[in-house]
């Protein structure tokens, strides 16, 4: 006889292990995808020599990073310099904990019934957890920029803090309008609410605002001003080498994965399959779970592709344009959206 607390602990541990490893694996896939898709968009070949179609390229990159000399410049603030890559990785891996990546299933362990929900933590505060933890991501960049003791890095850090604070507000308001529709902060409720109609249909403006803000929050082009290779020589990570440098990259890709997963969850029905296809197929329950996870993965993968597509298509914003867009366009728009949502709820 297994006691239920132990079962819960083991189930949680297994889920955490799988999710973290899948994210890190996806980071590798994304690095390859980024290089191949950028090559495709620019009419080049891209890396295609290591393994078939170049699929072993990320492993080669990883080995290269591990064996590079780890230089710590003498003018840096040593403690903070070493802290920054660690600080930046933590929130980017923590935020995925609330995303429901599939429905739930049950089985027997000995004779104890075990119910597994495919979500690490179904918190009462739900989406607020994401808002809170994601707002900490800025510390990694700021600390890195400051500790490098280099004016370009410093500018990168300052830009990132201004940018992330500016875009958190429209993002939060876009989330508010979704929460208003659902009446719950729990992501499992938000997903369940979208079984018949995705939120993107009811919240097109909210979706656009969230998408733009998500690009700014992850420091991706067209909002990658904190790095801006041409002006800042890489920005906050200029002074980093070897695995520390790659920690910044892993964090950026992990953030992209979490953002895509959240866009899917909040606006595109999470793990639900559209148009009642799943009901029509009449599959056994076990297969339904697999289809749900697959549906979630495909939608998330699509938004990851959108990230790459936009990066290699659009030019970078100027700093004043970025701030104008955030404060003068997105913020009023998101407020209007909240009001419209309120009116909509009152009418229907």
């Amino acid at each position: 006889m297994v006691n239920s607390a132990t079962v819960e602990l083991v189930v949680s541990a297994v889920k955490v292990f799988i999710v973290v490893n899948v994210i890190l694996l996806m980071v590798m896939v994304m690095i390859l995808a980024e290089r191949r898709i950028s090559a495709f968009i620019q009419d080049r070949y891209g890396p295609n020599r290591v393994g078939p179609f170049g699929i072993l390229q990320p492993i080669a990159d990883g080995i290269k990073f591990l064996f590079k000399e780890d230089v710590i410049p003498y003018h840096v603030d040593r403690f903070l310099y070493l802290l920054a890559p660690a600080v930046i990785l933590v929130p980017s891996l923590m935020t995925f904990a609330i995303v429901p990546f599939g429905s739930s299933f049950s089985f027997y362990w000995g004779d104890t019934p075990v119910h597994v929900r495919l979500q690490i933590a179904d918190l009462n505060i739900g989406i607020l957890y994401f808002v809170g933890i994601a707002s900490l991501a800025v510390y990694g960049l700021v600390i890195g920029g400051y500790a490098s003791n280099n004016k370009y890095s410093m500018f990168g850090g300052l830009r990132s803090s201004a940018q992330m604070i500016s875009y958190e507000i429209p993002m939060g308001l876009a989330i508010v309008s979704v929460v208003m529709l659902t009446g719950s902060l729990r992501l499992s409720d938000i997903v369940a609410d979208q079984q018949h109609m995705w939120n993107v249909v009811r919240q097109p403006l909210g979706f656009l605002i969230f998408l733009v803000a998500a690009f700014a929050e992850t420091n991706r082009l067209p909002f990658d001003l904190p790095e801006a290779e041409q002006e800042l020589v890489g920005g906050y990570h200029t002074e980093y080498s070897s695995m520390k440098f790659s920690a910044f990259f892993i964090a950026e890709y992990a953030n992209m994965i979490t953002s895509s997963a959240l866009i899917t969850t909040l606006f595109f029905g999470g793990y639900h399959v559209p148009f009642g296809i799943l009901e029509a197929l009449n599959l056994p329950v076990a297969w339904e779970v697999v289809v749900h996870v697959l549906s979630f993965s495909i939608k998330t993968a699509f938004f990851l592709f959108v990230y790459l597509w936009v990066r290699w298509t659009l030019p970078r914003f100027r700093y004043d344009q970025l701030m104008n867009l955030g404060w003068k366009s997105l913020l009023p728009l998101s407020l209007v959206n909240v009001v419209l949502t309120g009116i909509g709820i009152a009418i229907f």
Partner: protein
Amino acid sequence: MVATALFYIFAAIATAGAIMVVAQRNPVYSALYLVLTLFALAGEYVLLMAHFIAIVHVAVYAGAIVVLFLFVIMLLNVRLEERAPDAFRYMIYAGLPMAAILFVEMGYFAFRGFQQAMVQGTRVGLVESIGRALFSQYVLPFEVASILLLVAMIGALYLSKRKLEIVAFKRPRSKKERLKVMMYEEEH
């Protein structure tokens, strides 16, 4: 059992962090220790089942306000304390009694409210209960607080805008304007 252990761990981190905030010479380090303290406090809130307060604490204080602190510190490059380590030595005579008074005061009220809080404290900090209280019993104070914030924001905007008007990037057209610019330049 686990909760008690966690309470002491978070309490130790919060206290140590708070001491480091004042003990550090470098203001950037102070701000970062403040983040650590805020985090430990958020942990305590979670232990009290006040999930909403905990996450708002992290999102607002750690995620926004201290980032702004850091922003200002880095922009202004505040090195006063480093350059003149003894400049604030008289602060200790004012600061210590104030700290003692605050400690006794808060300790007294915390002790008095302790029993009561133990009984009813389990559901106070959840989203549902806070939302219900804010939009029924406390709706007026809530709205007044928002107006207060709005007024403060407008005030800040006004104060920062006034100088920009005088040094606008255009040639002074009239004598009066030229005088104004000259006076401004003399002042600064």
